[in-house]
């Protein structure tokens, strides 16, 4: 739709294709004014989004006296000063927290995907009475705020003796991820022509084989997308992790980061900046390679709000 738009909304940035030289020649002053205006607007948007992150990285390289004596926009005096990162990982226990996060996130992610994909298949491809109601039951879970299940779960884990381990996190994450996974997988299976499954049954495949050999490969991409979405939800969770990690050694990276303030006090800027940076770099690494898929997946899962 881009090239057919009229000249008042002329190409703006330097990167825009020069597809409309006639318009520019006809009203040069106005076109130039417009491209300056839109260029400035785009630059402003990018500065608002990117500058805080740049400032964060710069801050992680500064020493405490630099923080207190130099202006806030100043560049770090040394570009290779990684002391803050060392302090954050060693004194700040960031390594332990990151390990806990991985231990809690990976099993629950695997389980929620495995259970969710199978359930999505059973609810959308299989034919049985009550499947619409069951799907609704799962959907209702998207709406339930975490606060509603927190206290009974606390009691349950306490009675069963799971308190003091990472199991409460793994179990809770698995369950909380299910509604959205089931909902999204059911949607993806709905998009697969039914004839494919019916043909497979005519060929004599039994249902489980069909699920593994026909169903799974068809939605392989979708599974990856859903897994990516769930990863961000679980990795960035604070509520569940805060409730069920009662000891410092159990803290996930988000809870650990939250307590950085307490540990160093508000004044120890460098290590705090470095710790935040490390947390940001983790998601940045994933986003660098998979941004289009992340954007598509997260907007598709927007019902979660």
């Amino acid at each position, binding site marked *: 739709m881009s090239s057919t*738009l009229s000249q008042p909304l002329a190409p703006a940035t330097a990167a825009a294709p020069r597809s409309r030289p006639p318009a520019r020649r006809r009203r040069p002053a106005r076109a130039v004014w417009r491209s300056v205006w839109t260029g400035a607007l785009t630059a402003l948007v990018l500065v608002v989004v990117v500058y805080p992150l740049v400032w964060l990285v710069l801050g992680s390289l500064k020493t405490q006296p630099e923080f207190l004596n130099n202006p806030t926009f100043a560049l770090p005096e040394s570009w290779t000063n990684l002391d803050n990162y060392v302090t954050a990982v060693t004194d700040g226990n960031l390594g332990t927290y990151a390990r806990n996060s991985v231990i809690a996130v990976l099993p629950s992610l695997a389980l929620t995907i495995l259970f969710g994909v199978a359930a999505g298949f059973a609810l959308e491809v299989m*034919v049985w009475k009550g499947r619409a109601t069951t799907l609704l039951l799962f959907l209702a879970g998207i*709406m339930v705020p975490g606060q509603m299940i927190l206290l*009974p779960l606390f009691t349950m884990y306490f009675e069963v003796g799971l308190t003091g381990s990472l199991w409460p996190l793994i179990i809770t994450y698995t369950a909380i991820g*299910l509604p959205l996974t089931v909902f999204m997988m059911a949607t993806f299976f709905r998009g697969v022509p039914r004839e494919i499954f019916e043909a497979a049954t005519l060929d004599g495949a039994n249902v489980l084989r069909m699920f593994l050999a026909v169903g799974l490969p068809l939605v392989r991409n979708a599974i990856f997308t859903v897994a990516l979405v769930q990863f961000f939800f679980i990795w960035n969770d604070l509520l569940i992790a805060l409730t069920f990690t009662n000891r410092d050694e159990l803290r996930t990276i988000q809870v650990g980061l939250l307590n950085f303030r307490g540990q160093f006090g508000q004044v120890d800027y460098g290590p705090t900046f470095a710790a935040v940076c490390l947390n940001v770099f983790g998601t940045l690494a994933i986003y660098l390679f998979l*941004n289009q898929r992340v954007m598509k997946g997260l907007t598709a899962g927007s019902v979660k*709000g």
Partner: protein
Amino acid sequence: MRHVLGDRRAIALLLGPALVVYTLVMLVPVVWSLGYTFFEGNTITGFEPVGLDNFARLAADPAVREALWFTARFAVVLTIVQVVVGYLLALLYVFVLRRASGVVRTLVFFPVVLPTVAVALLFQQLFESAPRTGPVNALLEAVGIGGVDWFASGSTAFWVIIAMETWRSMGFYAVLLYAGLVDIPEETLESARLDGASGPRLVRHIVLPLSLPVLLSSVIFSINGTLKVFDSVLALTNGGPGSQTTPLTLYMYQTSFTYGEYGFGSSIALLLTMLCLVVTLFIFRSSRRDLTKA
């Protein structure tokens, strides 16, 4: 083949694990939590029945009213701000940047995936006033307005939370609304242009009415998410100063785990769930309308 796709054992095997985990860890606790509203106490000290006291307290407690007011104000203001900013960005992508918008879209979306705690710590520093001046106050001082102690009062802290959440989510709403805008048929825009509509008038009379459905969905998603706000507030202000920025979610958490009142905590959680339920009913209606359209 109906026979094969209706195989009960296979259905049980595929659906079973999800249903069991979901029932035990979500459905049972929801009912259990409803039961807690008639008791007071906690796991350590034990529970005793209190009848309807928790609901009477819910109605009378000024802190509940304050938290409810904050939650509603926050949900409404943030929804308006993030959907409007998202829509403006989407217009920028579609009509100004066009083909070149890919990189901008991707960059502006990035904060969406950042951990909330990390963003909150970043914004604490950005808006800091003492002992050192953060970039926002430095900027304000440079243009002669003078620095503001953002976290000293509830009203300014409120806007810092709004700013942070907008920064975090505008890229998300921009992409959501962008998808709606590119669906507007080119012929419709072209014929409007032949009729002399351009720029702001084209947006107001043609683009805006045609993107109303996707705008409505965004508003509903946003309200549903913002009513449950927890991480951002906890990490940025921890409800303070005092309890001036405490939403229902945080008040429930403090009641339950700081004061050990599971019964009253469950009652607050129920209030929150009812709020979300009303909004979710709207989601269902709007998403169903979308399905019939597609």
